[in-house]
């Protein structure tokens, strides 16, 4: 069968993930020390796991309401208010999704279509471009720069806007750079958004992991922006709950209604067990987050300090759990650096180019590993650089 003729052009036109391609090689090798995984090394806190187990023991294995349990939506709204001063109505403005990923997908499909341009700052997580294409819209990337601490500036945004621009994806705290956006940065962005009557998809999945006393600020908390923003967040990174696959979107009623409609048809309802666990996480998990954050912070200082000492120009990340050192001084491309490091020292990093062309010249190093593991890997990276 000529499957090329059966499958759509759009899905066939999408490039496979650069991370995946690289890791197909890694998976073939033994004894590789990896600093590449993009999820917490912590396990879900025990009391949260227990809540999930308990719900199974009680036989609570049915679908939940389409939007998710009301109890969970209430806790989500309390959390968003407690942490980011955002006010949403649990009955009409929140939908619980299968990870932040589903929320991103349905928000893109609800907000943009053929003829629309979607602005995507890069380097950033790999899903925005393909999902925009699958929504029928056109992705337009904006290159953020190390000299601006990888933040999106109002000028960069203004320059990228055309008559067809519909939506800005705002991926902060950022994977892979570790950049955050502070209130002043967001205020400047907000003015441009309003001026051009755009919408914002704010992916805040790493919002609980910021360091140096700089708490996350949501763009929806900036004057005039709540009505233009879909806030996306979830349980994966903050509560170490990646495998439970649970996230959510919060948005004004007309948008939330459409998100719920699409979610209802493609997912019906998010995993029931995970929702019970998430209620427990939101009610009693603040201490767990604080503990993990402090651990990540220690690793962050260790990793960034060590990378700088070995002569790699490394931007100090203020969020997420990645360091994004510049490797141009080695004269190697991102891909060549990672491939040689893998073969010569058996250390796996992710080439920055996997996160967009603007990631070329950088590598992503995840510090969601134990200090001992990080220390071993960093020694090998140092030896690799010395021998170049």
């Amino acid at each position, binding site marked *: 069968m000529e499957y090329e003729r059966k499958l759509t052009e759009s899905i066939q036109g999408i490039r496979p*993930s650069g*991370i*995946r391609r690289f*890791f197909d090689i*890694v*998976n073939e090798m033994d004894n590789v020390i990896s600093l*590449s*995984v*993009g*999820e917490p*090394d912590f*396990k879900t806190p025990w009391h949260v796991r227990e809540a999930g187990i308990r719900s199974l023991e009680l036989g609570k294995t049915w679908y939940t309401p389409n939007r998710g349990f009301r109890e969970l939506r209430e806790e989500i709204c309390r959390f968003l208010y407690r942490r980011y001063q955002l006010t949403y109505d649990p009955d009409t403005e929140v939908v619980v999704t299968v990870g932040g990923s589903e929320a991103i997908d349905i928000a893109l499909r609800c907000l943009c279509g053929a003829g629309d341009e979607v602005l995507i700052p890069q380097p950033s*997580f*790999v*899903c925005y471009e393909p999902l925009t294409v699958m929504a029928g819209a056109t992705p337009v990337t904006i290159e953020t720069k190390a000299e601006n601490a990888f933040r999106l500036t109002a000028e960069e945004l203004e320059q990228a806007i055309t008559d067809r621009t519909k939506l800005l994806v705002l991926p902060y705290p950022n994977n892979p750079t570790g950049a955050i956006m502070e209130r002043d940065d967001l205020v400047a962005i907000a003015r441009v958004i309003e001026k051009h009557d755009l919408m914002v998809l704010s992916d805040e999945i790493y919002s609980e992991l910021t360091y140096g006393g700089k708490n996350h600020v949501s763009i929806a908390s900036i004057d005039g922006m709540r009505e233009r923003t879909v806030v996306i967040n979830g349980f994966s990174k903050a509560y170490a709950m990646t495998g439970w696959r649970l996230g959510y979107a919060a948005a004004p009623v007309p948008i939330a209604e459409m998100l719920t409609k699409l979610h209802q048809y493609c997912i019906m309802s998010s995993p029931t067990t995970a929702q019970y666990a998430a209620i427990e996480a939101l009610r009693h998990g603040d201490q767990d987050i604080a503990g993990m954050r402090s651990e990540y912070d*220690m*690793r962050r*200082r*260790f990793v960034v*300090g*060590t990378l700088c000492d070995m002569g790699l120009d490394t931007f100090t990340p203020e969020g997420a759990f990645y360091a994004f050192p510049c490797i141009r001084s080695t004269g190697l491309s991102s891909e060549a650096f990672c491939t040689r490091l893998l073969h010569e020292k058996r250390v796996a990093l992710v080439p920055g180019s996997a996160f967009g062309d603007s990631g070329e010249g950088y590598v992503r190093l995840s510090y969601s590993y134990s*200090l*001992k593991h990080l*220390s071993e890997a960093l020694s090998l990276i140092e030896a690799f650089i010395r021998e170049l």
Partner: protein
Amino acid sequence: MDKLLRILSENSSFTPAQLARMLGEPEDYIKAQIKAYEDSGVIRGYRAVVNWDNVPDSGVQALIELKVAPQQQKGFDEIAERIMGFDEVESVSLMAGSYDLLLTVKGETIQDVSSFVAKKLAALDGILSTATHFMLKRYKDNGVALVDTEASTDGREMVV
């Protein structure tokens, strides 16, 4: 808890420079802190966590419960201090509950440990009774897992 002590108690092989980076403090400050802990006796030494079960001919270990008659004035201290003087004894703790002292004892063979209990320990004044438990296998020691379990392996995958 003090973060420096927590890191060192998990892994004492980090250098002061590394610890300084982790904790965001100057290296000299870290060195001074460590020295202060050593001088005041908070840090008593640095050693490897060895899984003796994997070392051939590394001997046997036993836990020994002791019931002891406390002495006037000195309570349990005098007898505990006498017991800790034996080379065979690795640890001595005063316990609340149905016995008084708990010892960890090491010997080359079961006979060695038995003869230590019978000839040296039981012979001490004030020992009312002993109960010896030989260890068969150690799964976790000093907070370190000595066996690889499913729960301790990093099962994370690259998914995107």
